[in-house]
């Protein structure tokens, strides 16, 4: 199994996609969903209410996924995201109630970073297995917030051992002329146009500052990780720490910082749940979103764009499930069936017969389910992100490209 001295055939691969590709994908999606609405009569698929709610559901997942991205790009697997989010929800509750909304945001970030600090000290300094440390952090964070909540929130107005008092709300943005002006257009149900109007309305109505910040952070993360020296060095630690160290990069320091930032992102995700998606800290508020974030990151192939798409997808299904969207989710089944059949045809053209058969069978099965049942139980909606992630891992594991040294332990002086 020694490395052969034989040059491997370069595999042609599409590496960079232009912004226009993303735009085309978004427009294509809108058209597809519009079609789906027409065909199935599930009108709630693209109402501005749905889109607003999707945004609120997406941002915490995306922030958690960003947390995962920062950490894993530096080579540290972080399944403690859930715990760091939990700490964030408490931080938002405590600091938000006592010192105001923005202090709540900072508190969420700070507490998340405490979780990140534990993970960094354990994995980077003491070389503890990343998964073990992550599990420990999830146990500690849950216990610590419950302990602290009953220590600090009991006796406050509206507070108790399982919830904080109401947190003052963050500023939000409404551009009334646009929002009101488009209301009519959206309600007229013009094919595609109404869908566009709904999106614009969602973006101009009651948009929380934290939502904007969250989305900006995705962009900032991309720029920092891919366009700066700091980012290049950080990524090199995740791809090949030995190489990085041989070139004078202080690997352990970058890993440490990356995990701290990861904690900050996850903490902010928790803060978002407490302050935007809700108005106070509550026990169990995260509901596994840290893991969904992890799933979104994997779905997005450890890239910011893909990760955002994954978060959006998971946020969307979650929203449809919550908005009594049994019809809506049911309608999505048809979309999945058609999509699977389309992929099957595509695979057949590339002569991947086995894959094609697999997709065709999946498409037919899902299609049959669509016609056999009238609505999808919430339970199934809830498991969607996880099932999708398993499918992606199972079907496309060869195409996924996680950082090469992700999860490996690294000790200084290993270069050479």
């Amino acid at each position, binding site marked *: 199994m020694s490395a052969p001295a034989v040059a491997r055939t370069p595999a042609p691969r599409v590496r960079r996609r232009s912004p226009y590709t993303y735009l085309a994908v978004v427009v294509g999606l809108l058209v597809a969903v519009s079609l789906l609405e027409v065909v199935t009569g599930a009108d709630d698929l693209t109402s501005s209410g749905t889109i607003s709610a999707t945004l609120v559901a997406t941002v915490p997942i995306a922030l958690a996924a960003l947390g995962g991205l920062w950490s894993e790009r530096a080579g540290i697997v972080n399944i403690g995201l859930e715990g760091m989010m939990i700490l964030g929800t408490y931080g938002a509750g405590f600091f938000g109630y006592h010192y105001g909304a923005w202090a709540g945001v900072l508190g969420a970030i700070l507490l998340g970073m405490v979780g990140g600090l534990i993970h960094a000290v354990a994995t980077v300094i003491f070389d503890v297995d990343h998964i*073990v440390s992550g599990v420990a952090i999830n146990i500690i964070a849950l*216990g610590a917030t*419950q302990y602290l909540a009953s220590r600090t929130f009991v006796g406050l107005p509206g507070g108790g051992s399982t919830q904080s008092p109401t947190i003052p709300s963050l500023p939000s943005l409404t551009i009334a002329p646009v929002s009101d002006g488009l209301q009519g257009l959206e309600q007229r149900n013009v094919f595609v146009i109404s869908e566009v109007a709904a999106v614009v309305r969602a973006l101009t109505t009651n948009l929380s500052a934290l939502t904007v910040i969250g989305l900006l952070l995705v962009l900032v993360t991309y720029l920092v990780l891919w366009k700066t020296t700091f980012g290049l060095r950080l990524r090199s630690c995740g791809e090949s720490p030995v190489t990085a160290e041989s070139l004078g990069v202080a690997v352990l320091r970058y890993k440490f910082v990356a995990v701290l930032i990861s904690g900050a992102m996850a903490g902010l995700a928790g803060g978002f749940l407490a302050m935007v998606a809700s108005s106070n800290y509550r026990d169990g508020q995260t509901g596994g979103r840290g893991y969904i974030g992890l799933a979104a990151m994997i779905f997005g192939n450890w890239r910011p764009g893909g990760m955002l798409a994954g978060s959006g997808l998971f946020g969307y299904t979650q929203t449809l499930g919550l908005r009594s969207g049994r019809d809506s989710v049911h309608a999505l089944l048809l979309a999945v069936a058609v999509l699977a059949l389309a992929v099957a045809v595509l695979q057949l053209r590339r002569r991947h017969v086995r894959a094609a058969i697999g997709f065709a069978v999946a498409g037919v099965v899902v299609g049959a389910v669509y016609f056999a049942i009238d609505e999808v139980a919430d*339970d199934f909606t809830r498991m969607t992100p996880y099932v999708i992630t398993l499918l992606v891992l199972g079907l496309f594991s060869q195409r996924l490209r996680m950082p090469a040294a992700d999860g490996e332990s690294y000790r200084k002086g290993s270069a050479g």
Partner: protein
Amino acid sequence: MSGGRVRRLLLGAAAPVLALVAAILITSLVLLVAGDPVLDTWSTILSAPRERNVANIINNATVLYLSGLAVAVGFRMNLFNIGVDGQYRIAAFAAAVVAGEAWLPGYLNTVLAIVVAMAVGAAWAGIAGLLRATRGVSEVISTIMLNFISTSLVAFLLRKAAVRAPGSNSINTKEIPEGSRIPGIPFGGGVVEIYGFVVLAVLSGLAYWFVLNRTRFGFDLRATGQSTTAAVASGINVRRMIVIAMLISGAAAGLVGLPILFGDAYSYGSTFQSGLGFSGIAIALLGRNHPVGIGLGALLFAYLNEQSNPLQILVGVSPEIVAITQGVIVLTVVVSYEVVRRYRRRLEQQAVAAATDRPERPAPTEEVAT
């Protein structure tokens, strides 16, 4: 060699003791910072448990022990089965349905339910095993996903299979008929009872020890866990071992919920205890995957759980503080084992150097890569 044996025993005990002390110190620090009474808290936790409490500790430890075993099987093979949590819940649900339907009479029904639980747990874990063996998917990620899927799936199926108890909000499966329940063992003068399942847990521990340390299969499993490459070269079918190890781990996980089901709850409901799988990870680490070590770890965790209950009433401290202790133990135990391991390795190299006639270069280790 008796001096060597004593030293080995001391070294073996050093790591968990070190970890425990560190965890207690850190927990005390948290209490101190939060302004809670440190000494009162510990004196409450460390006070002698009463008979009833001892029984609770043993019962809780039984459950945790099985969970620790399930995780440890994976660990010995270098597989991280985070999914014990999902596996035991879906397995306990299946067992509850089967036992509740009572297709077979008396204990035959019990046996059937246990077999079903193990099969369901194994199948659920087997998905992750297959994904790993055939597609190279990390079992950590897939078992995390499967945990959530099992939560939703069980919730869905429970609603289909459940009967609502009159005047209650929770829904449950049909109760297990009395003849199929596992009777408790009288304890402490017969005042209280402990789960009859304790016997089965101990037998599981024995089986675990025997299979891993005495059989060829166990040897293959440990060899694969230590070095996949050496295992392949020695003729072990590693892919098959991955699937089998996950199946066994899942089957053991299937047992986790059963002591509660057959000894206490008699039905599976929406309030059935969750989170036992994650404690199992901590306990397997603490017990160093050794059946006796896991037992001690399970007793320790159960002790902390039970003894923290009166904290709120007696000293006004939230009992969740022990979760911090338990979580910190996971970290400190790993660190202290590593410290002890390095120390021991150095001792061994010195012993070898002393035993050989002339000094030779030891095999390069990570530190001495040439």
